[in-house]
């Protein structure tokens, strides 16, 4: 008893101040969105696209054959000096950066990556350089918007979510769980993971939705009372992630359910997930 009180005193108060205070420090090797330093890139090279495990990088005129989608064949095409990356497929790995003979690719340290629409993940990699003829605005990631007014009235101060793990690797689940620990304390925003879909306002789905989880996912969805929302976390749930093209999985939640928040990463950092959730609830405004 006394020992536990002493331990409590020594362990101290650990809940972070974020978002009111500074966010927790990330590793200097943290990998956000991959970007190309346009001036260094050699037109027509496409070594990055060919190295990418999920064929997330495309060139405007690149032709991908079926083999390439499977991760086997080569990508053919002429470089037009304008690379686009689908952050919904991106694993935030190191393969493109390592493959680039010019060392032109690096990963941004920005953890803010969640969006409201699947299509918003398609962004230019040059980040608006003169060499590529793009503007910073056109290549910026349109971060997630808050829920519409009526939904915000219902869920803004209390959002109960049922988590469904549908075929991932359990790392996304682990980093969702982290948000419940004392350091992050998701409860202070009124967000809680609940044990039954009957208690939930929506689903938080991870994993590519394996064929063997398709029915269970849909049944869980049906058991949630309307109005309800869907949040997907991790590249698996967005696009299939490392399992894109597999017959055994559906390639993410896709059109199966109406998704209102996409959190990319493999797995996303807890800070990326929290940022997405807070944007959804209007606690962080997109302008900031």
């Amino acid at each position, binding site marked *: 008893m006394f020992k536990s009180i002493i331990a409590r005193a020594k362990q101290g108060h650990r809940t972070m101040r974020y978002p009111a205070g500074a966010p927790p420090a990330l590793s200097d090797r943290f990998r956000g969105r991959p970007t190309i330093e346009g001036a260094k890139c050699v037109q027509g090279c496409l070594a990055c696209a060919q*190295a990418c495990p999920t064929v997330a990088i495309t060139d405007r005129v690149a032709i991908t054959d079926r083999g390439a989608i499977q991760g086997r064949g080569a990508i053919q095409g002429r470089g037009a000096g304008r690379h686009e990356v689908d952050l919904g497929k991106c694993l935030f790995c190191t393969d493109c950066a390592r493959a680039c003979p010019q060392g032109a690719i690096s990963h941004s340290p920005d953890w803010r990556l969640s969006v409201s629409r699947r299509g918003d993940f398609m962004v230019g990699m040059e980040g608006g350089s003169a060499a590529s003829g793009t503007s910073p605005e056109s290549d910026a990631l349109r971060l997630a918007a808050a829920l519409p007014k009526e939904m915000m009235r219902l869920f803004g101060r209390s959002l109960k979510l049922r*988590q469904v793990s549908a075929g991932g690797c*359990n790392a996304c689940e*682990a980093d969702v769980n982290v948000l419940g620990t004392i350091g992050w304390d998701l409860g202070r925003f009124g967000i809680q993971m609940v044990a039954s879909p009957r208690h939930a306002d929506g689903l938080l789905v991870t994993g590519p939705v394996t064929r063997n989880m398709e029915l269970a996912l849909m049944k869980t969805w049906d058991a949630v009372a309307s109005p309800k929302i869907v949040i997907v976390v991790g590249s698996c749930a967005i696009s299939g992630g490392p399992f894109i093209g597999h*017959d055994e999985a559906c390639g993410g939640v896709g059109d199966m359910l109406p998704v209102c928040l996409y959190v990319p990463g493999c797995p996303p950092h807890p800070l990326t997930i929290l940022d997405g959730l807070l944007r959804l609830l209007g606690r962080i405004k997109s302008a900031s």
Partner: protein
Amino acid sequence: MMSDRNDNFAPLGNCRSIRLAEIPELPFDRFADAIVSRTAAGQRVCAFFASAGKASGSTRLQVVIANDDEDSLAVGCCSVSGPAFESITPACPQVHLFEREIAEQYGLKPVGHPWLKPLRYQRSWTDRDAWDRDRGAAILPGVGDFFRVEGDEVHEVAVGPVHAGVIEPGHFRFQCHGEKVFHLEIALGYQHRGIEEALAGGPDRRSIHYAETVAGDTTAGHATTYCQVVEALSGYRTTVHSHIVRGIALELERMANHVGDLGALSGDVGYLPTASFCGRIRGDFLNMTALLCGNRFGRGLMVPGGIGFELDAPRAGELLARVETAEREVAQAVNLLWDDQSVMARFEDTGPLPLETARELGVVGVAARASGLERDVRYNHPTGIYRYVQIPVSTYDTGDVFARAYIRWLEIQQSVTFIKERLRSLTPPSPAPGIGPLPPDSLAVSLNEGWRGEICHVAMTGPGGSFSRYKIVDPSFHNWYALAVAMRDQEISDFPLCNKSFNLSYCGHDL
């Protein structure tokens, strides 16, 4: 019974390769006898799987056996023509799931298997089906026969696939008499993503990512094992620096998960101080892995031929400081458990797994050591940095929840010591040449002690040097059945606690 000296299994070291032609193809009877006599003598099956045979329609059965007493491995094979073989399970229980897997993947029926049902509810890779199901008919997960205890007061409790927590899906059926569990049957397969299928034909740009996501909480374990199997095949010599960084990452992974498990066990018995301290400290360990490579689970750290991120001196210093802080905090948080009567009352004598049962089932890892088996790849079959540095094996003899918790605590302390020593005498990076192509018609085995237990990867190459078959055995594959056995005669309300004390992977089993 013949002695294992002349049963014609080929000896093979961990992380070594052999030409397929050098593994004698035995008649099935001799192959089966060798497995039975070796396991009866205390050896164990690391992997037992099928691949396409040489003659069309034939199937090759391949086994990897570990002799932990003599620190050696052996591989044996045989060829089966036709759609069936005689089940080895009745004489050697530890192959029961392997045979169900062979039946499911290759449509090859182990005749006489005591409980032959699908393992992952997937379609056969061949045009045969072990259950003669219609090719067009859907295969529904969890649907089929289950053990059933009949009786007026017996009832059945079914749970899952979707569970109440943020965890992976699986289906559990308990046969209960009041609170007491007679039998638990576990049906998995919901997480099946087709990783082994997709690895065949590689290595390619996806391969390492499959290894990283077989079980995401074991990224360092599976990715290292994958890299080592590729390195073994191509005869590549990895630099000492790479070995050290891999070892550090493996031990960080062990500590993160063990600390997390101790916190979760504590939460399951309603003891909140340790639960909340450990939940946070687990994150500190994950952040140390992120310090190494930018990702909390170690994604991108392992690459065939070495590591993706070097460990420079300032970073090593920072890591050392963080490990030392965490060491103090973990000790304080965890030692509360052993001093608290209400915690110990729940941990002790709950979910016991007797030594003999653990041995017969071929249990590995924390669960094996908690039942008294001295079984640890780092000690019995060391590779990489573990060849130079020995980590003592931690064992206990009660096999209950307490033992499985206490082993974790002992191992956390060993890992801390290991990491501190490595960081204080870090060998700087040296240039590493690229890894060459893989040789044709070869086989390599790579074992590592992941935080859950033994991870086994077996790679076979075809005439062109690409993978003709890639077999992965996650430690969970050996251990799920042990959880079911440990639940016999227990209260059903102790299931979450028992389950957590094993903390097995669903996706690692389902691949």
